[in-house]
């Protein structure tokens, strides 16, 4: 396999609705930004790019099959190779990894990974229905048909098993919204208190409207390159490229019906021991894993990505994480899957301060200094979740963070970490049915 880099990216502002443009033209916005940022003229781009991967989740939202090819021709990329990636909420993360594969394998030197979703074409309740069709339509959908309900059941069990509280979840919402306050691409830029989050209307007990991400229209893309691809870019632009290396990828899966998730041993990360999950703090004296309180796919993806990137102790070796916080509860569950803390300790970890950004005032009493900021961009909760674009948006924000260019792109340097070396992005589908983790490093 060859070394792979992400060299540029763009995100259209995520909004509730973008009736002014069709999905093709929204993707084009992100692509144009990507090229302008490295000073690559559009015609030159069409000359040297080898192909693309298209990312979008639901054919129902567009009521248009083969939407990927319509983007491809709008961008002027026909007749170059492309394929569409679909994996629920993880679609964007999978797209990023498919582009990685195209480069790593030697099949391409320059690959554009683009994604979009236009969810405003239906009302929120219909959108919830479309999303719920990504649960078993014989056994799950007809009973509840509501993803927020499924996630709420998962966190209720997490609360029962580990003592996690709704206030701990609210910390995640306050953090992510406050971070997004400084991110002009975010859909929701709000300064909130724990009281605001808990006082918002309940959607599925105990999750409130401010514990849950919103539907969005938006697009994002990244340009992925080999070393040869970087040389081609530099020749075409006459400028040096500020490349970020993709040093690890991992993926995992789990049963679609969360009721079917079995109980196994915890797959341990290098810094964990089997004894960590035995003791009277666990129901029955031993952690029943994954249960429905944990995402086995998230642990599987993390294990592979960490092994690939040579990470032994994630909290110490990763400087920030952009993770899939469709729910405040799933951010807490994901801390545990990614080994930022042990299983069962996610609630406490959420309020410790370790996942917050330095230099931002949250109005909360936090006992620890930031160690590994999680969702420095504001995450899905505040940025929005136009599904096919989301994982790529994370890649773009993580790349800018490692390039040290947040100030330039956000027009505000507040969210720029001081000299971060390594970041992780995490994309998640279903109630943890597909999960991808990718590691990005300053090169």
């Amino acid at each position, binding site marked *: 396999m060859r070394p792979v880099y992400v060299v540029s990216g763009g995100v259209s502002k995520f909004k509730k609705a973008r*009736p*002014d*443009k069709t999905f093709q033209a929204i993707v084009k916005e992100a692509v144009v930004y990507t090229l302008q940022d490295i000073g690559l003229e559009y015609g030159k781009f069409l000359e040297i790019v080898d192909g693309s991967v298209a990312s979008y989740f639901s054919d129902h939202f567009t*009521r248009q099959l083969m939407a990927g090819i319509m983007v491809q021709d709008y961008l002027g990329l026909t007749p170059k190779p492309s394929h569409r990636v679909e994996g629920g909420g993880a679609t964007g993360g999978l797209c990023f990894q498919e582009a990685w594969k195209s480069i790593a394998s030697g099949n391409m030197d320059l690959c554009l990974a683009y994604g979009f979703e236009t969810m405003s074409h239906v*009302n929120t*309740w*219909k959108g*919830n*229905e479309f*999303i*719920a069709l990504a649960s078993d*339509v*014989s*056994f*799950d959908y*007809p*009973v*509840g*048909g*509501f993803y*927020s*309900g*499924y996630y*709420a*059941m*998962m966190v*209720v*069990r997490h*609360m*029962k098993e580990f003592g996690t509280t709704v206030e701990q979840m609210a910390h995640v919402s306050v953090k992510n919204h406050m971070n997004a306050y400084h991110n002009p691409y975010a859909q929701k830029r709000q300064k909130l208190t724990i009281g605001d989050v808990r006082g918002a*209307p*309940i*959607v*599925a*007990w*105990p999750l409130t409207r401010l514990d849950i991400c919103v539907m969005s229209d938006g697009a994002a893309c990244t340009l992925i390159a080999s070393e040869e691809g970087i040389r081609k870019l530099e020749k075409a632009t006459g400028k040096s490229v500020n490349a970020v290396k993709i040093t690890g990828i991992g993926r995992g899966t789990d*049963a679609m*019906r*969360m*009721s*079917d*998730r*079995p*109980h196994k041993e915890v797959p341990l990360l290098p810094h964990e021991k089997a004894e960590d999950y035995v003791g009277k703090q666990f129901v029955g004296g031993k952690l029943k894993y994954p249960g*429905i309180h944990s995402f086995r796919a998230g642990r599987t993806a993390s294990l592979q990505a960490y092994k690939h990137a040579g990470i032994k102790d994630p909290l110490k070796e990763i400087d920030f994480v952009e993770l899939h916080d469709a729910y405040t509860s799933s951010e807490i569950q994901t801390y545990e899957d990614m080994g930022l803390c042990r299983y069962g300790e996610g609630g406490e970890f959420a309020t410790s301060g370790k996942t917050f950004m330095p230099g931002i005032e949250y109005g909360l009493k936090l006992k620890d200094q930031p160690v590994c900021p999680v969702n420095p961009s504001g995450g899905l909760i505040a940025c929005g979740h136009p599904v096919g674009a989301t994982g790529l948006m994370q890649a773009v924000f993580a790349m800018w963070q490692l390039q040290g260019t947040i100030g330039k792109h956000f027009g505000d340097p507040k969210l720029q970490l001081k000299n971060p070396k390594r970041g992780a992005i995490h994309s998640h589908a279903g109630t943890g049915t597909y999960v991808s983790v990718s590691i990005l490093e300053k090169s």
Partner: protein
Amino acid sequence: MTKKRIQEVVEETDEGTILFNVPMPRNVELLKDLSPIIIKQSYHIDYIHSYGQDSPWFAGLANKRLLGTRCQKCRYGFATPKLSCMECGGECDWVEMPLEGKVHTFTVCEFGSEEFLKETPFLLCLVEFEGFNTLLLSRLIGLDPKEATLNWVGMKVKAKFRRNSKFKPTDVYFVPA
């Protein structure tokens, strides 16, 4: 020879979207500044959905019997129809489930997807059964949604069946035992 005349005008019909007027400036260069035209399109489908190998489960509900499956090779017990074992790939057989279980977890849906909006607030739960390794997603009835508490986790519940089967998984539901 007279040629048969072919109709040269399309029929004017009344269904669908009718726009009686749209803005059009004399100068086409101004068109880029116009607001988008947004139309409503309705979309309805009847699916012919087969339950396939899982069909006996629904027949069971219609007969007030709750069925699960058990692997003939590794004895793993599924509280849902899984005719192919997730653990070993072996073939499972149908088995009768106990009609009592415990609430493994639950939620109150105050909001929902369009189809279920009119049923809100409704309670969802995952039920665990003695001797079975997996859970069953079901509706929980007979509790006040406003009183939701973590104490409901672990509560004993029993299965009840609809009198007139709709051949949906909601033909069975659970109430406090």
